[in-house]
Structures are given as structure tokens and as C-alpha cells.
């Protein structure tokens, strides 16, 4: 009797239809993103700490 099992995975669904992006390309992307995000993260950290200080000053009793 033939098996009725069916295997579905990312690999079987996309077999032969994928191309691995080279490690060097990803490294290049990561370097670019890292440089761009550095300022964003630094700005966020400053804003996060300022937000907390300001939230402590707002008294809610209306």
C-alpha cells in the first residue's frame, strides 16, 4: 500500500526556485545598515531617556 504521507516544508515548496544571497553581499548590506542605524539608535536612546524624565513630571489628576 502506498503511503499517504505528504511533506511540506520551505525547502520542498521552493526547491530549485531559490538563490542564496552571497555572504559577502549580506556583509556589505549589514555594514551599510549598521552605519545608517548607528545614529538612529543613538537618537532613540537619548529620546527614550528624555521621555522617561518628562513622563515623571506629568501629574494626571483631572
Amino acid at each position, binding site marked *: 500500500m502506498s503511503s499517504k504521507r505528504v511533506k511540506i516544508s*520551505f525547502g520542498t515548496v521552493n526547491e530549485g526556485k531559490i538563490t542564496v544571497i552571497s555572504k559577502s553581499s549580506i556583509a556589505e548590506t549589514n555594514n551599510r545598515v549598521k552605519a545608517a542605524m548607528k545614529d538612529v539608535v543613538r537618537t532613540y536612546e537619548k529620546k527614550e531617556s528624555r521621555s522617561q524624565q518628562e513622563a515623571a513630571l506629568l501629574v494626571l489628576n483631572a
Partner: protein
Amino acid sequence: MGVAEIYVITTKFSIFVINSEIVRMLTNIEIEITPVEELIDALKEKIGEYFLQDATDDFISPYIETDLANLVDELRDDLYCLIEYPYVDKVYRDSYYNYYSSKHFAYKRDCIRVSLFSGEISHLEFFDLQKHSELDAKFLGYFVIRPTINALFGRSIISPKAFETNHFQICSCKTDCLIYGVKLGVEGFPHSSQDGETIKCAETTIWALMEYFGNKYAEYKPALPAKIHAALERFSYQRQLPSNGLTMDQISFALKEFGFGTSIYSKGAYGNELYNIIDSYVESGIPVIVGLQSADIGHVIIAVGKKFDPKVDWSQVDQSKIEIDGKEIDYYETTNIPAKYIVQDDNHAPYREIELTNPGEHYDDPDCQGYEIDSIVVPLYPKIYLESFVAKQLVLNVIQDSNVGYKFQDGFVFRFFLTSSRSFKAHITKQSEMEPALKNSILLSKMPKFIWVGEFYVKGSFATENMIAESIVILDATEANQESIDALIFAGYPDRCISMNDNNFVTLHQVFQNYRYYSNLK
């Protein structure tokens, strides 16, 4: 107007003599069914009879009628109401046992509950099993009247469908209520007015939020006022009752104690970007606690939804700029599209519409009219490590990249939200026109509990019915490394898709198409 269709089912008092004083105790429940047009008269009678026992109608302050009208006037005209007394309300009872019962003045411990139905109902329908599903369909929620005369409205959960104005979408939770022995369900966002003594706006906001999350997710539990005060005890340097209100960071602290990973954003730090942050969280289906400040007063409300304008006037929408492939192009962020937001304000009826730039628009008091948004607290799942401000920039950096991005044309529309991967995958399965291979690629991608999703639209296709996105980018919201593309899970573009396979980023030779707008609001 025809004859009043009011049914009073039963009432019975027992008289007890304790220490020579006559104590009248209600031993049965009284039910009254009335059309909404007679609700205020019926409630005035009940308030007079139960809460102001020795007063006649003449003694009932006109403020009570005004107070009742603030809510009742907002309701649809065709509603029928079922009034019951005595009703044991868990929130008021908690305040009663922890505060009101300790006062010299005698407060009642029972409340009145008013249930709302779309269309006429009869008490006989409650006894007929065949009619129960019909009653359930008609049931639109309830509100509670407290015996605290200066702050009558207690907790409520009312479907937006009960209101005259209801063309908006909100974060909603479902809850079951036992009305006249029948279990009926309603979807809405919890609301309560403050009583001014045990709960002010800050505590009411925490209560409403916990009620919402507690009803919706197993991870959270509703919190009664005493539990809220207990959570804040080690953050308090003076007595907690009567309440003097809280600060915005105390709200954040309490929510953290109740299991959230909160984020605070202030106007001083973020400027007008704060409005965009509020929008993206509301679009994500996350209620946002919004702190307001005028010259002399601080107040807090919850942004729970949004009113969508079906037609977008793009000339009114600020454009943003992005550099793609060495060329600077303009694009639109949906957070910049002018919109009204739906808020729960404990000084007003539920679901008020406001503009974020004018949150005091419903107030008569000039001080309150001057409210401006000062800061917000966002109650997030504690393992969401990638927050909105950074995540949005990361998505924009992904699309700019030559390896994992796409050359978008000038004038594209960008929408950004947080969602659970479960809900998102459920949405994918409902995309009837999407290619099975593309569906599989998304459904079989391993995703964390929460993801950030950027949707990209061609301007012409945005704001049409059931609009189709051109592209999406999905980020891992639990990724704390914010300076790399480690958070990228999937990107779908008109020419290809990007995904992960065996720890490698791969290009899928399939185009992204037939994906429709996703919403966490109802």
C-alpha cells in the same frame, strides 16, 4: 409617541430590625425593560428609589439628568434597555470595601446595570431557548450606574454599534455577560468614569487597559482598583486614598508590574513624530495611553481606534524623502494622512473622536480645551525588543539596500504596524487570489510571536476598498540587534521575494502579488 413600553418584573423588600434601626434589604432583583427614549426617566426613578431613598423627584439634582444625558444622548434611538437592580459590580464593590465603607456617610454597595439591545425585546424572550441567539445578536453591551451620586457612570463595555456615530474601527475585546439568566456576548473597549476618590483618570485608564488585555489574552488579568493601588505602593511616598492621581511614569510602572514591557514617548523628545508613533501603534491594534497637559491640568485618555477617511486628499499629506539607488524620491507615510482617533476619556461618553493636535475639543472648560499631548505609554508584550521608532528606520533601510531592497518609484505609500505572527499568517491564508507558492513561502517562514510589518502601496491603489499592497517587509520584533538586518524575516517585492533558508538569506524566484491590506482593528 405611543404608550410607554415598560415592563417591571419584580421587587421585594425584607424589613430587618438591627439595634432598633429598621434596615430595608432588597432580597430580589428588579428588572425593567424600556425603550431608550424613556431610559433617563426610568433611571432617575431608580436613582431616587434606591440611592436617594428619602428623596422625591423634586430632590433629584438636575445634574444627575445632565450626567445621564451625556451618555444616553449619544446612543441610537432604536435601542431597548434592560435595567436591573441590585447589581453587584466588581469594580465598585472593590472601591466600596476598600474605601467607601470606611467613611462616615453611608454609601450603598449595590449598583444599577443597564443592558442595551438593538430593537425591541420582551422579558419572555429570555425564557425561550429558541430566542437566545436572537437576543445575543441584539445585545450591544451594558453600563453600570454607581450609587456615588457625583460620579454615576461606572464600568461599561458597549459595542460601537450602540452609538449614533460609529463609522470607525477600534481595538476590541469580547466579553460574556449574564443578563436575566442568559449568557450574552459583546465586543467593545471597556470604559468607566472616574469616581474622583478611589479612581481618578490615571487609575481608570490602567483599569480599562487591564480589563481589555485581561479579557483578550490569557497572559494578562484584569486589575481592580485595590490591586492597582497595591502595585503602586512601593512607588508611593504618601497616602494613596483618596487618590491624588498618578504621574505618567507611575502608570508605566504599574503596567510593568502587571506584565507589560512598556515604552514611554514624550512630545518634548519626539516632537510631531509622536503623532506618527501613536498612529502606528493604534494601527497595530495596541491601545495607547495618552497623557494630556494644559496650562494647569494633566489628564490621561486611551487611544483605542481610528476613523478612516475613504478618500485621501494627497495634497494635504506631508511627504517624506528617501534615497533609493542614489536618487532622492518622495513618499507618503500613512501616519501623516489626517485622521480622527477614537479615545476612551473617563470624563466623556465612550468612543469620542479627536484630532491628536486638538485632544481637548470635547471639553467646555477653557483649561481642558487647551490640552495638548505631552507623552504616551505603550503597553507592549515584554519580549518586543525592537521598538517602533527604530523598527521603522530599519524597514526603510532594508528597502534602500541593493541586495535586499527594491527600487520603489516616486510617490509610494508606506504603512507600518506591529502584529502577532499568528494573526498575520491567518490573514495570509485568507488571501484568496495569492499564489499558493507565495502563501506557502510566508506561512512556512519561522516567525517570532510578534513582527513589524511595512506595507508599500502605489499611491493610486491606496485608500480604495480592500486595497492591494505592492510590497511588504517583515521584521522580527524580538530582535534586539538594531544595527543589522538580522531582524529581517521576509521581504516581498514585485520582482522577487527575500527570505531565510538554513541561516542564509535567499532570493525566491516568485513575485509578491495579490496581498491585501491587513488590519488589527475592527
